[in-house]
């Protein structure tokens, strides 16, 4: 069945007609062309398609779009103002926390949720929080450092 839903997408109200079977990932990519949201596994296990739903990280491949009706969705396209990088993105660049970078959008958003929720996380808390995001280049050491740098710069910002 097709129904119209409203999304608070990257700070804008968007109306879109979706099928019941459409995942949020499909709607974000196919309808809104938000290419930072990428499918990695289709079963909610790799974190590549992470978006923030009301500030919490979710796997958009594993959530029906209709379940996101009326809620706030943040993708990487909505994170920075388009001019300057967000402090977390800046930290990923300076700490070289990206290689093939297919996983990067998911990681950046998970780090944002982490630092919003726990401003001063311990190493174990970082590792636990980010364990649902996989990086096959295995740049985890760089990502860990980027979180630490972003933690400081987020407070200054």
């Amino acid at each position, binding site marked *: 069945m097709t129904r119209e839903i409203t999304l608070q997408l990257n700070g804008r109200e968007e109306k879109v007609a979706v099928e019941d*079977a459409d995942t949020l990932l499909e709607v974000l990519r196919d309808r809104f062309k938000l*290419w*930072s*949201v*990428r*499918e*990695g*596994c*289709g*079963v909610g*296990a*790799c974190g*590549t398609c992470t978006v923030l739903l009301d500030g919490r990280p979710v796997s958009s491949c594993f959530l029906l779009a209709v379940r996101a009706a009326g809620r706030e969705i943040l*993708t*990487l*396209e909505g994170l*920075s103002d388009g001019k300057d*990088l967000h402090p977390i*993105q800046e930290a*990923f*660049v*300076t700490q*070289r926390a*990206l*290689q*093939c*970078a*297919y*996983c*990067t*959008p998911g990681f*950046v958003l998970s780090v944002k949720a982490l630092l919003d929720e726990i401003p001063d996380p311990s190493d174990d808390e*970082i*590792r*636990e929080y*980010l*364990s*649902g*995001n*996989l*990086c*096959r*280049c*295995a*740049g*985890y*050491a*760089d*990502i*860990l450092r980027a979180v630490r740098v972003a933690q400081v710069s987020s407070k200054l910002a």
Partner: protein
Amino acid sequence: MADFAVIGQSVYRKDANSKVTGQVLHVGNIEMPAMLHVAVLRSPYAHARIRRIEKSKAEALNSVAIVLTGAEVAQMPGVDPYFGPAFRDQPILAVDKVCFVGDPVIAVAAKDRRTAEDALQLVEVDYEPLPAILDLLEAVKPESPLVHEQHRPAKAFADLAHVKAGQKSNICYQFKLRRGDVDKAFAAADRVFEDTFSSPPAQHLPMEPHVTLVYLDENQRINVWTASQTPSYVRTELSNTFGIPMNRIRVRIPYLGGGYGAKLYAKLEPLVTALALITKKPVRYALTREEEFLTITKHKVITKIKTAVKNGVITARKCEVFWDTGAYAEIGPRVVHKSGYTSAGPYRIPNVWIDSYCVYTNHVPAGAFRGFGVPQVIWAYDSQMDIVARAIGADPVEFRLRHALNEGEAFATGTPVKSFGIKEAIRQASKAIEWSKPRIAPAGSKRRGKGIAAGVKAVLTPSISGAIVMMNADGTVNVLSSTVEMGQGSETMMGQIVAEELGVSFDQVHVVQPDTDITPYDTITAGSRSTYHMGNAVRAAAGKIKAELFQVVAKKLEVNPDDLVAQRGRIFVRGTEERGMTISEAFLAKFGSLGTTLTGEAICQPEAIPTDPETGQSEKCTEYWFPSATTAEVEVDTDTGQVKILQFYSVGDTGTAINPKHCEQQLLGSAITHLGLTLFEEMIFDEGQLVNGSLLDYQVASIKDLPDSFRSIVVEVPHETGPFGAKGVGETGALTVSAAIANAIQDAIGVRIHELPITPEKVLRALTQKKEKAALERSNENDA
């Protein structure tokens, strides 16, 4: 060392900003009007004949453009329905039989993926099951049923010229090495050690699964956008498969979401091209993760290794290495050859015998995986190095140093080694972990131990990299290269080399992405070869431009061109920067016109002397070597079998590090990936059926698997013909991880694991066996 402006500087990646904003171009972001989407029906049998296909209901479904079978592909005029880089053995779609569970049988192209999947539900295929060949050591027996009746060489690569047509065997290629007299040495030995090691099939798991888009342009040329590590090869393969001239095919590669060997050679491209040719519509096929598991794997390997020791020195080694290459050979023969000849190790052993077999089975095809098979052979030989050292009471580090080859000594192939920093790698790795510091005395159920492993890989030789460098009149530069940026930082590496050569800033160099219409041939982006080969090619191409500019400036200034240098965007007399001109002024002097360009082109093509088919000997089997060493400290919980990595050091000899931080990152990244492959990764098959083919069931290293303490260390033994002395680094960190961990476990709890992955179950089982053995020995003593 010479005074470089940008070589040796850890500049930031060229692609950092587009990647961190998620706006980088991937194949999946490219859309075409009226584009069709593909779904594929795959075989439920490991081995079966296709008796009948009924597809009319699927064809009748709304919005379905085509339901294609292998028999129909075979009837396309001028088409060779089989492809492959070593043998043309892989059908675009199964023609008369299926050879593994997951073999593509029917392809549907429809207006969207869901419709295509619905259509597949309406297809009926009638199979006649055949005996499945699933056991690697059974498959090599003469009486085994055959996967393929005939083997047809592809003749695509110079290094595979020795691959022969064959039949009546599942062994599609065998590498042999004979050096000295092993039988005599074994007879004269003080002690002989015999072990069997195994390493399971595993998934490359690039976060971006394979995806290919093909359309015919306004001139009916075939345009391919594909996530591939081999743009040049894909064009050649499509040209051969469809009988279409090379310049009627254009292959473009944007950024890759990882490759690690999975995206080498042709994968989806022949099928998607067939669909586009028939439907005359743009067609995109994006694999699901589950399909990715059924596309390519890391080889399962069984190694039987036997070593003779006399007076504390290894005198002989015999290796039998069996590689499960699956239903289609893919690049198996190259893996078996290149890894095969290194399977006795980087050690001084006078008598060596190696048999390395590439074996067809009815499993998912296996190919190159970050290390091209070398991690599997090092797993065997450097596990056994530790067994031998401990058995004869030698220190494992000292024992390796005692045997490690010195500069100029002959490798097992007879090739003298050069730029061979193996000893320095071993020393740095043992220093990092404070090897000689006394071990902590055991207490409670948790035991600690340290381990080391060393090994070496040789670069694929011969191979070819062509490049064109174009300098613009404003001093900016475009680099045309078919090297694929898949995360390794090749754009940055090329930018640094060209900037250094032309004396311009790194930011002024733009690297054009692979496009077979404009970027020259390159063998492959893999095997730690791009920095050396493409680095040399872009440097030489830039050098030609520099030489032309020097001629112009020398004439103008009335000096000898040899006295000129190019630095900081100027060309001037060495030592007197004011006696010179800017690059723009030099262009104006040459052309008298604005907006002009100068191009230089070059090919880097190192040659090898083919290894002798009977003895494996060659005066030069490779252009360069990359030595690796890993040390680790583990804590083993003897109650649970859990292995925790406390300290972890990865050392690699990279030659001159063009970008030191990126070299460290490559070493550590490939090492951490291989920690997962060592401790838990394994594709599990039941009667040929993959049982853990999804990320819900297949575990890979996450950030939680980072050791408590870790570091990668770059050893720089410059190579005389490398660009600024550089070699390669992409695989080095992967090579020695597994053996180092197993050796540390042995140090901690005195048991030896022979089968990867080293799961808690295997550790506990080995501990139990050790206890039972000790109890048995005690009771035997009591009885006596």
